[in-house]
């Protein structure tokens, strides 16, 4: 059995890999596989959200005060940016499914732009926190007996948004790969599976942020 496969093109798509009989079957299986992976991701972030819920319950006042030092407007802006990036990914997939090679690449490039903007803004937020002495550890600048609880809030904040940012970086890498593939005409209609599962991953990362924003930034 030869391991070398001829390069697929839009005119000659590759045959489905074994053990699949049809591309539709292979596609459905890949999509299901990504959903299963996302369920593990849900529990990964879910564990952190559970820890957050417990400590917010126990230290409500300190969490409220600590949250007030976060920039809610920046958080809202970043939420909007991610929503638009998800729209771009959805439009990219639609373009790929209807054979629009160039528009797929353009939508993915826009996704990359928006995602990068998010990370830049997040980084500037982190820098601002650093300047205000809001990094947990020896240099944590907080007056009062709620100091430890406030520090705990910031630990959760950095771990949750940091893990989210790591997922964004991975997602952007995947999007970049898809953009290159789209430009070279390697995403084939009607099942551009690689792009579809990448999209699922990206939307999931958006969903995580949808909960992070109100819970961390907007504690009333």
């Amino acid at each position, binding site marked *: 059995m030869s391991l070398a496969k001829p390069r697929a093109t839009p005119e000659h798509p590759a045959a489905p890999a074994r053990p699949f009989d049809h591309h539709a079957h292979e596609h459905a299986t890949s999509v299901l596989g990504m959903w299963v992976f996302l369920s593990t991701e849900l529990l990964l972030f879910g564990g952190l959200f559970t820890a957050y819920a417990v400590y917010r*319950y126990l230290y409500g006042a300190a969490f409220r005060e600590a949250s007030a030092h976060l920039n809610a407007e920046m958080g809202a802006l970043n939420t909007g940016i991610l929503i638009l990036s998800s729209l771009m990914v959805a439009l990219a997939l639609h373009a790929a499914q209807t054979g629009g090679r160039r528009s797929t690449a353009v939508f993915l490039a826009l996704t990359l732009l928006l995602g990068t903007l998010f990370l830049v803004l997040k980084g500037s937020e982190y820098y601002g926190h650093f300047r205000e002495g809001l990094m947990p550890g020896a240099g944590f600048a907080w007056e009062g007996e709620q100091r430890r609880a406030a520090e705990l809030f910031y630990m959760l904040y950095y771990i949750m948004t940091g893990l989210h940012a790591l997922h964004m970086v991975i997602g952007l890498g995947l999007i970049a790969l898809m953009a290159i593939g789209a430009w070279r005409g390697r995403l084939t209609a009607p099942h551009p599976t690689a792009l579809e599962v990448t999209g699922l991953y990206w939307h999931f990362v958006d969903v995580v942020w949808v909960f992070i924003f109100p819970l961390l930034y907007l504690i*009333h």
Partner: protein
Amino acid sequence: MSEHSPSHTPSRTPYFLVAGALLVLTALTYGVTLVDLGPFNTVVALAIATVKAALIVLVFMHARRSSALTWLVIVVSVAMLLGLMLGTLDDYVTRTWIGVPGK
């Protein structure tokens, strides 16, 4: 290779509508913090976030037209997460009610 019928070009309108709704809901989430509803601020914020997540999952992630297997994965993983959170929280919340055994 499966046939692709040209008459069945899926519409992009739902994506724009959902994106618009998500942006409005984000503004609403932010706006609600300017009103004092006591403990309900958190409830409302979570409710809006859940609606946003549902829109993303149903429309952007195409759950609406996904297989029963996919739905099973979604429902079970959300149920597991809720179980984790409720099971953990009910422990901590009831400690002030009946104390910790042995202490």
